[in-house]
């Protein structure tokens, strides 16, 4: 019984992975043949980028503040107070910035995409698109993936800046660390490659969020229950995929970029 249940789960997971891969292939082919709905792409950049501002800024700032405070507490014991921002800078650029921004955007945008496309599916709007000689991938999927890959790196840069800025403020004004040494140490140990790592991760995470959201919407079950389930699964699967992908990207980037 357990074997049957497990094999069914594995089979479903592999099928969904294959469907996602095919959707990504169709979207890439459509993008390279310039079949994109440009007006919708702009709207999606606005929807993902501008409307996620508050979520991303609060996440970035408070993560930087907490991480700065905890690092200071440990470093203060070994009289390395002024190295606090250097650790925060590297961590926020490499990991915390791109990953936390992606997780927050997955919750807000991935769910919205799955719900919108899922509702279009159950109300026959996607069939209507097809009867109007419009491919759903060109019209719905490609603008969302492209917008995710444009907006998420920008949001990540913003989150990194606010994280470092907020951490600097906490260290200087609440913990009394010398600002000059703090800032100079951050610049000394945080390199261009750290920013490249963070932004390149954000580019990939942006694509994952949109791809999973669109796939879940396009394949959702019928009725309100189907849309609800698709919405939940879009967020859960996007978050899990981001965390797993992050590990492999970190490994790959360490090998490729750290040697440059």
């Amino acid at each position, binding site marked *: 019984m357990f074997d049957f249940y497990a094999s069914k789960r594995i089979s479903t997971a592999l099928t969904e992975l294959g469907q996602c891969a095919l959707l990504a292939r169709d979207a890439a082919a459509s993008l390279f043949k310039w079949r994109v709905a440009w007006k919708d792409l702009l709207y999606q950049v606005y929807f993902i980028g501008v409307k996620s501002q508050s979520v991303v800024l609060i996440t970035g700032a408070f993560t930087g503040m907490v991480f700065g405070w905890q690092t200071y507490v440990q470093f203060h014991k070994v009289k390395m107070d002024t190295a606090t921002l250097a650790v925060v800078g590297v961590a926020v650029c490499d990991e915390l910035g791109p990953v936390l921004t992606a997780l927050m955007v997955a919750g807000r945008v991935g769910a919205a995409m799955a719900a919108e496309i899922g509702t279009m599916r159950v109300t026959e*709007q996607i069939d209507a698109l097809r009867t109007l000689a419009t491919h759903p991938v060109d019209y719905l999927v490609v603008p969302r993936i492209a917008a995710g890959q444009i907006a998420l790196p920008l949001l990540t840069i913003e989150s990194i800046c606010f994280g470092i800025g907020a951490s600097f403020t906490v260290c200087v004004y609440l913990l009394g660390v010398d600002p000059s040494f703090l800032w100079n140490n951050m610049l000394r140990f945080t390199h261009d490659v750290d920013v490249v790592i963070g932004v390149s991760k954000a580019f990939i995470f942006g694509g994952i969020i949109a791809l999973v959201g669109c796939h879940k919407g396009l394949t959702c079950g019928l009725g309100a229950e189907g849309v609800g389930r698709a919405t939940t699964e879009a967020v859960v699967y996007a978050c899990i995929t981001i965390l797993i992908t992050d590990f492999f990207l970190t490994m790959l980037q360490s090998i490729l970029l750290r040697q440059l």
Partner: protein
Amino acid sequence: MIEVRNLSKSFGGHPVLDDVSFRIENGESVAIIGRSGGGKSVLLKHLIGLLQPDAGDVLIDGESIVAMDERQLLRVRRKFGMVFQGAALFDSMTVAENVAFGLRRHEHLTEAEIAGRVAGVLDVVGLAGTQDKKPAELSGGMRKRAGLARAVIYEPQIVLYDEPTTGLDPIVSDSIDKLMVQVRDRFKVTTVVVTHDMRTAQRVGQRVLMLHEGRMYANSPADVFFGSTDPVVRQFIDGVADAKEFLI
């Protein structure tokens, strides 16, 4: 010309269409009738390639669409306009944006030309002045009219209607029937109407196809069909339930 050859389709092992064949000539107006859940809408979706059959073939102007992939089908679908049961208007767009959708995607027209065409077709369907309304602000009948305007604005050769009068009161249903006839005569289109409303079938259909238990039970001119004495046909036309169904 639409030709369906030996079409079969089942869902979850339950056969919905079984060896269905028929032919619709250019400019003809055909009503497809049958009981609820009898496969009428499934058949209509096969005509435009929204569903793939388990067996059989569908030919549009002599070209088989069954083996086509989604991108190849887009070319064939430009010949079609389709009006959905729930209208399927894009709810994020205004009526004008919905109606202009096909024009914007496939024809190189200026905004002024598009606005002119939209105003013209909305006038034909009796929705003049509703350009800026959202679908949620429209009644059921108005949504169907807007769906019809969207389907015919780029002057397709074939218009498919999926239950165009379902859920509407008799007066609105009457106006939709008249509109379908008006569109047919004005744009000289091939018309295929799926319905279980006998009045719609009688008014719009020059020929009537009847599906019964997944098979093509009748295929005859409207006057012959409505004068039929066949018990199954008669029962459907007169709307009489079986004794065992009455007990349910």
